[in-house]
């Protein structure tokens, strides 16, 4: 639907797009606001906003800690929506929600779609929701026109990838390697054949995430992927160098 179109259009001018990831409420919504501002100003093309969850099973230690602290400092799902509404209004790039399924389930899955639609969220990334469990979710995503971003893993067969692609839209999130977020990725021979498999299985744009942290990483992906996803690294930049370092970090990537 709308995301695929946006990506293809934007790709006309850029050899690769950047999608960044932030954890809402970490270290505060004020910090998120400033980080997002700098990201957008420095040319980020899409932003996935993670609504924190107490059991982030697929995340690595940095993001786990961010989730946990965001919850501990009182970040509520309601506030995440309000903040997201503010962001979509302020910035002219697509925003996605990334979170675990229980957040939708408690909110009420349809209500979650309805409210997300209302505030202009373009896609959902739900790492613990395989198509086998997502009947309602995929029906609603068609109904509300929000892209369900499917995830490919290095362990996915081509057959499985095609099956997954049948449920998704917008783009495919290709997890660069086994494991959780936040560890460095080796772009070795296996990675090449994995990406070939991804490419063969869908015509949707491909985003690659997990362990992308430098200009070299991003360059490696040019020609192979459409979007490079920067996750853990921006959290580390803020933690280690402060909010003001985000802009220059982002602009250094491409």
């Amino acid at each position, binding site marked *: 639907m709308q995301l695929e179109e946006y990506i293809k259009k934007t790709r006309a001018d850029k050899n690769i797009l950047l999608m960044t990831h932030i954890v809402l409420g970490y270290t505060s919504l004020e910090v998120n606001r400033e980080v997002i501002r700098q990201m957008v100003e420095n040319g980020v093309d899409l932003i996935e906003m993670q609504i924190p969850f*107490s059991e982030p099973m697929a995340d690595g230690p940095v993001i786990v800690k961010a989730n946990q602290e965001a919850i501990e400092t009182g970040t509520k799902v309601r506030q995440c929506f309000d903040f997201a509404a503010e962001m979509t209004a302020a910035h002219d790039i697509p925003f996605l929600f990334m979170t675990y399924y229980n*957040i939708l389930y*408690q909110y009420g899955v349809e209500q979650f779609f309805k409210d997300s639609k209302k505030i202009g969220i373009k896609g959902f990334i739900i*790492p613990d929701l395989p198509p086998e469990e997502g009947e309602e979710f995929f029906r609603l995503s068609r109904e509300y026109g929000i892209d369900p971003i499917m995830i490919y893993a290095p362990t996915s067969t081509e057959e499985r990838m095609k099956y997954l692609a049948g449920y998704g839209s917008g783009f495919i999130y290709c*997890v660069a390697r086994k494991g959780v977020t936040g560890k460095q990725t080796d772009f070795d021979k296996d990675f090449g054949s994995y990406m070939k498999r991804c490419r063969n299985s869908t015509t949707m744009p491909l985003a690659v995430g997990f362990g992308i942290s430098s200009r070299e990483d991003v360059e490696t992906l040019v020609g192979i992927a459409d979007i490079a996803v920067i996750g853990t690294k921006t959290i580390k930049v803020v933690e280690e160098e402060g909010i003001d370092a985000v802009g220059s970090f982002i602009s250094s990537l491409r």
Partner: protein
Amino acid sequence: MTKTGYYGNWGGAFIPEVLYETFRELNTAFEQAKKEPAFWQEYTDLMSTYSCRPTPLTHAENLSRHFGGAQIYIKREDLNHTGAHKANNVMGQGLLVKRMGKKRVIAETGAGQHGVATATMAAKFGFDCTIYMGEEDVMRQRPNVFWMEKLGATVVPVTSGSKTLKDAINEAFRDWVTDMDDTHYVMGTVCGPHPFPEMVAWFQSIIGMEARKQILSQFGSLPSRVFACVGGGSNAMGVFQGFLDDADVELVGVEAGGKGLESGQHASRLAGKDGSAGVAQGYKTMFLQDGDGQMCDTHSVAAGLDYVGVSPILTDLWEKRRVRFAAATDSEVMDALELTMKKEGIIPALESTHAFVQAFKEAGQLNEKQAILINMSGRGDKDIFTIANAFDDPSWKEFIIGKGAEYAA
């Protein structure tokens, strides 16, 4: 879109894509094993030569007399090798791992019983072994940590979240998504994504099969009620399966009431009013969570019951009113433990003692021609630090102070 692994509205397999193949392979191996009578035979042979199955059924004559009601029978899972029912599941999964040709096992553990059992199985089968354990549980169950290490396992203290069982499960999954080719995750209870609930229930069903036969031969008829404590629910499912088809046998699951159901400090997902439906740790069940879906901190004197979720199979049986749920508070547990030790010379694990509490409350409602059965999931030796502490035992404290001073010197 095939929806497998559901029990009524509960269960499923909410897993990250990277584990899809691993689960496919596991499902295949499990389905295959289930079909082969030789596999179950290999399992029972192993359990009867390496552990001591069938475990006995003990008639607790003194307690029966004390309460003046039903005849109380105790199924003695404490006499398993490593001291709890956890051995059943673990040895069964060990046989599956051997079939699948994997070389490494990982597991979460709360009380440490499942960790010790897994480390034991790994030593026996020659697997590498890593155990994830909440840092708080590492503190309260140190003896078990010591044994796991001595059995050759690496114990990783988990510092995220509430630092208890649920966080250890998350961490085990994080290991698994990194290292699935050679590694099997030995889930310790009837929770988690399909096929774990079904698989663990299958291996634990050996308890109920034996118990049914034993009570028929020792008491002469079926028990009126069967009591089991419920952490994840594996020992309860184990014993309940022997009586599910006997409509007249009431099945009672006992959860951790902690400091009371009204206190907010408990782990009662079904007995109280605090649980609600949710999806986490790969499956759908009743969780203790807030309105946003964030999991709550739970509390129990028994580390093995201190868990936010509960078996989807039990949630289904609860919803269908086949299993009744109750809760036992920490202080009721200490009283029942003391009584059981003094009257029968039996030391149940703190987890298991929860089942005793509810059985004691109900024994007097029945008459002496009726029987009730308590599943004693494990022995209390492992809990000495917690129990001595709870009883505020002065000579124990003095002993520990002395030892501490000796080591500090």
